């Protein structure tokens, strides 16, 4: 399987994501923001960082980068997409995921490891996890406070589209939401960073539970 990682000006977790992809035994490909080309990959990770300096709103400018055209088509065709942190923000700005990520309620940047629970295994990025499995994953963000209007929140819960939930809420996020998926369940956004724990040298490789799920789902 070949997995693409988008690279915007200001992405800073792209190398980690590429490394994580290699660690899980897949082939990694960089997808440059200015190229409207997904290079025929089977899945895409939109990594964390501060694309375009977070100017205007996090993800607001990246959303119009050339690579986003084919990415939106890929999403419509059911292609697996994982947005991590700034990648999650980009996907909400692009309307590929519902809601938005607001400033943390306590107004501080949060850099920590948090415990999360896998709320659904019915996505390509959690298919290899156990239902209810608890993971410890790093978070590092200023705007991770998930917001959606009450109707959208109710629908997300009803359709079991909350993918990860914090056991201790680090940012004020609605319903302790750490990650959600789209209606088609192929697009997932997470605030925690699975790619930052993809090697025991980094203290843990629990993030591979998320990343390598896409292989499990594909039956590779």
């Amino acid at each position, binding site marked *: 399987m070949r997995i693409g990682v988008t690279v915007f000006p200001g992405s800073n977790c792209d190398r980690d994501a590429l490394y994580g992809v290699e660690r899980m035994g897949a082939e990694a490909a960089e997808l440059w923001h200015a190229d409207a080309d997904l290079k025929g990959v089977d899945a895409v990770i939109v990594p964390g960082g501060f694309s375009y300096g977070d100017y*205007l709103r996090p993800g*607001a400018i990246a959303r119009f980068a050339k690579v986003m055209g084919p990415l939106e088509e890929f999403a419509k065709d059911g292609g697996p997409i994982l947005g991590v942190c700034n990648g999650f923000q980009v996907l909400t700005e692009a309307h590929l995921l519902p809601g*938005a990520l*607001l400033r943390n*309620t306590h*107004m501080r940047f949060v850099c920590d490891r948090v415990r999360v629970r896998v709320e659904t295994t019915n996505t390509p990025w959690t298919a290899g996890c156990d239902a209810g499995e608890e993971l410890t994953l790093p978070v590092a963000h200023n705007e991770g*406070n998930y*917001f959606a209007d009450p109707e959208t929140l109710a629908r997300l819960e009803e359709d079991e589209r909350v993918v990860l939930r914090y056991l201790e809420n680090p940012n004020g996020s609605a319903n302790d939401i750490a990650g959600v998926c789209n209606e088609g369940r192929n697009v997932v956004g997470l605030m925690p960073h699975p790619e930052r724990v993809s090697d025991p040298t980094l203290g843990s490789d629990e993030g591979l539970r998320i990343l390598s799920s896409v292989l499990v789902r594909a039956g590779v």
Partner: protein
Amino acid sequence: MADHLMAEGLKIRVLVRPKAGILDPQGEAVRSALPALGFEGVRTVHVGRLIEMEVESADEVDAMCRRLLSNPSIEEYEWEVVS
């Protein structure tokens, strides 16, 4: 002629603010800082964003506000032609 038209561009002022009812931690931080400086009686503070542009035509300003300058799921906007 073209130079003259450019010089006559419209000045637009766009105001983007958090939607009513949406938690505004930035405004709240400012509100709680004011009494620390001795300013009493401030009940609410909301922090928004002011965007000034010079455009050749105002026809598409509303679309700009909806598609890029604001995020309609969390923010509201208003705009005016300043001159």
